[in-house]
């Protein structure tokens, strides 16, 4: 049975384009379209689609409000189609906040110069998102019992080397929501610096860092070249660049490098983790959260081999169980936790 998609966009032109692209995928079928958020609500009720593509700017009811209402009434995975600008970043993050699972640029050139590839990616994302029947949101207050694959008596500290110096987190699809969930649980006196690598376009990361900073007790900073590491501060890798840890264990600092065209991910979890492994080979806690693909696997392998600890998010709480799965399958994970549990365990490190 094919995945049933609802398209929400106020531009007829775009609705028809999206319909054509989505219908060209044999596994997807467009069951309906809506001109605005209001119509989207009705359509969702009527058609019960498996996944929704949502525009942000629409008359009568915008995509963010519609997302919030849909998630309250008929929770459905929603893919935001937004513009990748600074303004777009703000509204896209708002939409994620409202419960949207993922986002794609409206301008396909933003993903790939080859339109066909971009269109295939859109279809692939929709298929992946549809597989998740429920999606964790910020509003989701229910704490799902953790799937702990380790003896439950062990506290998190047992999983770690005694001399922990840094926490590094890598994530992709679903990451903004997951990171917010984890980081908001940490107290201001969290004793370690944190490096965050979230796959995100360059226009999004500054807004994202700012948003996290206002929500969290710990400091969140959009990492800049030359930043010194402070405890209780998380450094978000800038989009489109690579974040490396340089210096020595006693005087580490952040280096921001331009990314090479050969690099698939900008920022890349692997690159950051590898650089961290050189400074803190044994004293690192690396966490891989939800995301498509397997970025972070090589970096975790390096860290794991050197003696650092690796945690991975579990399948149930992951928006996309790709990156954490790569870690779990490679046997690198010292712990596989539910998203809520990761935050709790981290907070226990204080």
């Amino acid at each position, binding site marked *: 049975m094919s995945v049933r998609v609802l398209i929400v966009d106020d531009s007829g032109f775009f609705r028809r384009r999206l319909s054509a692209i989505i219908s060209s995928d044999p596994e997807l079928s467009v069951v309906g379209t809506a001109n605005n958020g209001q119509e989207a609500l009705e359509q969702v009720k009527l058609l019960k689609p498996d996944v929704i593509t949502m525009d942000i700017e629409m008359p009568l009811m915008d995509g963010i409000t519609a997302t919030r209402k849909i998630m309250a009434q008929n929770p459905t995975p929603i893919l935001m189609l937004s*513009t990748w600008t600074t303004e777009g970043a703000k509204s896209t993050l708002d939409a994620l906040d409202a419960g949207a699972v993922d986002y794609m640029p409206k301008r396909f050139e933003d993903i790939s110069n080859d339109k066909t590839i971009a269109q295939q990616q859109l279809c692939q994302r929709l298929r992946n998102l549809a597989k998740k029947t429920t999606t964790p949101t910020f509003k989701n207050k229910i704490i799902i019992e953790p799937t702990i694959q380790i003896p439950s008596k062990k506290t998190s500290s047992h999983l770690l080397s005694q001399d922990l110096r840094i926490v590094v987190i890598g994530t992709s699809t679903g990451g903004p929501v997951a990171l917010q969930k984890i980081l908001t649980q940490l107290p201001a006196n969290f004793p370690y610096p944190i490096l965050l690598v979230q796959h995100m376009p360059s226009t999004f990361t500054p807004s994202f860092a700012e948003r996290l900073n206002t929500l969290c007790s710990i400091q969140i900073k959009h990492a800049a070249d030359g930043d010194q590491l402070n405890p209780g501060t998380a450094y978000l890798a800038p*989009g489109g660049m690579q974040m490396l840890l340089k210096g020595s264990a006693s005087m580490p600092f952040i280096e921001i490098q331009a990314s090479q065209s050969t690099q698939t991910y900008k920022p890349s979890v692997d690159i950051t983790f590898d650089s961290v492994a050189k400074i803190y080979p044994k004293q690192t806690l690396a966490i891989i959260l939800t995301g498509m693909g397997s970025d972070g696997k090589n970096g975790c392998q390096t860290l794991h081999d050197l003696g650092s600890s690796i945690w991975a998010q579990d399948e149930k709480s992951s928006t996309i169980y790709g990156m954490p799965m790569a870690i779990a399958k490679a046997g690198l994970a010292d712990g596989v936790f539910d998203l809520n549990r990761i935050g709790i365990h981290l907070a226990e490190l204080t």
Partner: protein
Amino acid sequence: MAALDSDDEILQDFLVEAEEILEGLNEQLVELETKPEDSDLLNSIFRGFHTIKGGAGFLSLDAMVGLCHKCEDLFNLLRQGDKEVDAEMMDTFLKVLDILNSMFDETKSGEFPTPADPTVLNQLSAYLTGDATVTEEPVPEVEAEPEPVAVTTATDSDDITDDEFEALLDQLHGDSAPGIESSKSEEKPVPTATAPEKSDSDDITEEEFEALLDELQGKSPAAKPETVAEPTAKPEPTPAAKPKAKVDATPAVKKSDPAAKPAATAKPAETTVRVDTSRLDDIMNMVGELVLVRNRISTLETALEDEEMAKAVSNLAVVTGDLQTAVMKTRMQPIKKVFGRFPRVVRDLARSLKKDINLELRGEETDLDKNLVEALADPLVHLVRNAVDHGVEMPDIREAAGKPRQGQVILGAAQEGDHILLTISDDGAGMDADILRGKAVEKGMMDEEAASRLTDSESYALIFAPGFSMKAEISDISGRGVGMDVVKTSISKLNGVIDIKSEVGVGTTLSIKVPLTLAIMPTLMVMLGDQIFAFPLVSVNEIFHLDLEKTNIVDGQQTIMVRSKTLPLFYLRKWLASTFNDTDEPRIEHVVIVNVGTQRVGFVVDQLIGQEEVVIKPLGALLQGTKGLAGATITGDGRIALILDFPELMASYAHRGY
């Protein structure tokens, strides 16, 4: 640059939507001037630019994307109340709209739009950065360099990184790009924007630098896709999922056609179908033929006196009538399509004339035939410009005359039976009939005596005479004396009539009456000798019997008195019938009073047949271009009737004096 495939369905789809939005923006932007803080309006303008940008982005029309992007950003600030619209900004927006329209036309004709004038883009950027005083030229000093960068980054938000900027600088020196990249990755990126050019500034000439600045500023739309795409390219191609994504994406494989979905999924917007107007014309033509057949059958039926037949025929008549209406409706478009451009026309004109004018549109929703909408556009523009230019006075003069400084121009449309009434009225100075009469004498159009006999409304009609201009000096807007007669001719061609009412000091109202459709015309059938002629019913004023002894000769022209008005009388049979015999003139004749322009004229005809709806058929090659004939049609009894074109008829025959 490679041409666009203008037949491409996607492109056409975009153009249809963009055209609607552009028309909307045109109105909304003018409206914005009066309601600069209307948040609904700001939102909808924002969305307009946003949607065009989205579509243009899809088609890689980068010039359009760049321009819309800046406008979108600016309107985002406006709608958030971070900025306020001022008159200068309005001018820029309207300039932008003009550019967008020309880009649209370029796209329509299959070319990639040319990038917008950098000065406009710079101006927009300046509004965005809050620096309204930015000059049109980039400042040549090297120290000024951070500013243009800031301009670019503010809109494209960090798209141009220091490194990229550096690369640009390097490119100016002819360095090969790969070389830079490798060296760059090793050295630490320079944290400030000024640093890269400090090291390079020695070997860069001022011209080169200016060129670079121009490139950065002017070509930012072109640079955008590249810079945005690079940092974000190819996120997460899961190796496992990849084979799936490679599934052949041709329509042949698609299992599910959106059109084949259950009715519940159909949305209003998707139920429309684009139909070529020529196809509609064909259908209209065939319906026309059907109307003729119906007329023929109903004529035959009257001879049969069969009740069943009569029923069937009357049924046929009803169905044909409905079909005719339905087909006509498919060709209907709201007059809004034409009216929509007027707020802008009036605004621009009023601004350039330094007048204060408020345009009111009434009955924008009135539907009329698509061909008519198009045909009316130019005459209406001309008349509205005239109202603004000649009609409404300067604010000071208005004030002195005890009127509000702001002049009113009202453009109205309404359906009245089977025709459309369009009115253009202003509350300006009005027309002075005596001045017009004087002008006519001065121009040698008639002698003083003839001029003094003109009624007021006949004097007003003088403005439609070729070469007649009311304006003392010629402006570039109107007053060249060409145009009004062209307006007149175009309206006549549509079987329309123009009427002028004016009062000195109070204002002028021009009324245009045009039939709802051009294809089917109600006519009055008359006989001249043994030949049938059709008078367009819209011009027919009244019919009566006339005792020919009651006519007078004035200036060698036979005239009749109708309700104490003297009208010229013409014997149509003398003009048109071949079997005319001068000797046996009956004493009592049928006279049809016809409106020709603003004049009324009496025509003597032999017999009156009655009203009939006819389908206008063009004349055959032999008769093509015959003066005074609008076309031909087939009557209910299967004969051919010629349809008269009165203005032309008068022009070619009236000087004969009989």
